[in-house]
Each structure stands twice: as C-alpha cells, then as structure tokens.
C-alpha cells in the first residue's frame, strides 16, 4: 500500500481484507476471462460511438435499449447515435 496524503484513501482501507478477498473471488466469476480494453482518442472522434456499437454487435444490450436511444436520437434530429448508450447525461447528449 503506497503512503497517501490523509485526504486520499484506497477503498481497501475501509473494507475488511478477508471480506474483500472473498467477495472478489465469489462475485467476478464471469469476469475472470474478461479482456480489459482501453479506447483512446481525441475528443469528439468517436470513442463512445465505437463502444456503443461494439456493445450492440456483441449482443450485450438489454431489451428496449436500442429503441430508447433511437428515440433520443430522433429528438435531436439524428437517425441513431450509438454514443448515447454511454452518454446517458443530458450535457453529454446535447453536445453530440
């Protein structure tokens, strides 16, 4: 554990170590095989759009989610804005 300034604490300082270790073991089964992916890009160059489209193409969206973003896109004069799957806040959507 690195030494931290007093106003900064790692969450592990707040959770009993035993519990944390057990939780990680028992609650991330389906994440064990996950591959972390980092998307890097310039602002407004399509990071969220790419991730949104990947979520759709890999069948990882809940029922009705695509219909929801199509409706939100239409409201803003757009056909379908895949980034709305990630940009859920009004300030994020209104700058699309």
């Amino acid at each position, binding site marked *: 554990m690195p030494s*931290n300034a007093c*106003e*900064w*604490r*790692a*969450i*592990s300082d*707040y*959770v009993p170590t035993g519990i944390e270790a*057990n*939780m990680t073991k*028992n*609650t*991330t089964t*389906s994440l064990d095989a996950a591959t972390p992916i980092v998307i890097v890009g310039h602002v407004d160059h399509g990071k969220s759009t790419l991730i949104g489209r990947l979520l759709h193409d890999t069948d990882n*969206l*809940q*029922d*009705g*989610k695509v219909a*929801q973003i199509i*409706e*939100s896109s239409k*409201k803003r004069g757009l056909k379908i804005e895949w980034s709305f799957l990630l940009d*859920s*806040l*009004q*300030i994020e959507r209104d700058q699309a």
Partner: protein
Amino acid sequence: MIEKHKLQGVIAGIRRDEQGTRAKERVFSPRGASHKWDIRNQPPEFWDQYATPHEEGMHIRVHPLLSWREIDIWRYIEREGIPLVDLYFAKDGKRYRSLGDSDITSPVESNASTVAEVIEELETTKTSERAGRAMDHESEDAFERLRVAGYL
C-alpha cells in the same frame, strides 16, 4: 435528516449497472449545500483513490457497491444466507426485481422462486433490472433530474 443531524457522510447502495445516470457516479460523491449533485464537477477516482473534501454544509455520498452488478448482490445473498422479503421471488409467474413506491413499481415476468433460481435467471436475462420502475420511463432525463436534485 441529513441537515437535522448535520451528517457529513451518507452510505448508499446504488450501483452503476442499475441506470445510466448512476453509472456516472463516484464512489465518494460530494454534495453541495442544497444536496445538489454537480455532474460537471466530479473528482477523478483513478487507481481507487478517493477525495474526501469537507466544507461547511456539504456532505459526501459514499457508494461502496457502485461497481457490483445485480448478480453480485444475489450471489452475496446466497453465500451469506441473507433473509429478504418474498416480493423478490416469483408468485404466479411474476416477481419484483426492484422495489420502489408501490404505485409506480410493477413486477416482471419470472418463475424464479428461490435465490438459486434468481441467480440462474440473471445469468441470461436481457430485461433491465428497473424495467418495472415507472419513474425511469417517464422521460429521457427523468432519473437524471431526480438525482441532480438529491434523490438517493
């Protein structure tokens, strides 16, 4: 209650996977004097390092379960044998996946009547956890407006 007892911290069980607006939350989320959530001015939490500022009149919402998923909660319930209200278990083909005020919460179709069956259902379901919560579906930003105003 926060004002009455001058609370500096409130622990809440919200999770990122519940709803898009909650996905934008921080583990340590500062709230201003009127409990407002300033979405545009949230502290970064890289490498699980959390800011705990303290100024007069503000409080911090602490969200320790933010990164848990719905299924993590159920696996924890199963492992610890935690008792819960039977509204979460299916009766006549329906159960509640999320509980709110009774007039705006409806059950979803399900045959899961035990913790193990709920876990099995969640492993494959495509229905949103909050599908039965009417307040989320009123308008696109209904939930965001509630949270900015201080809703837990």
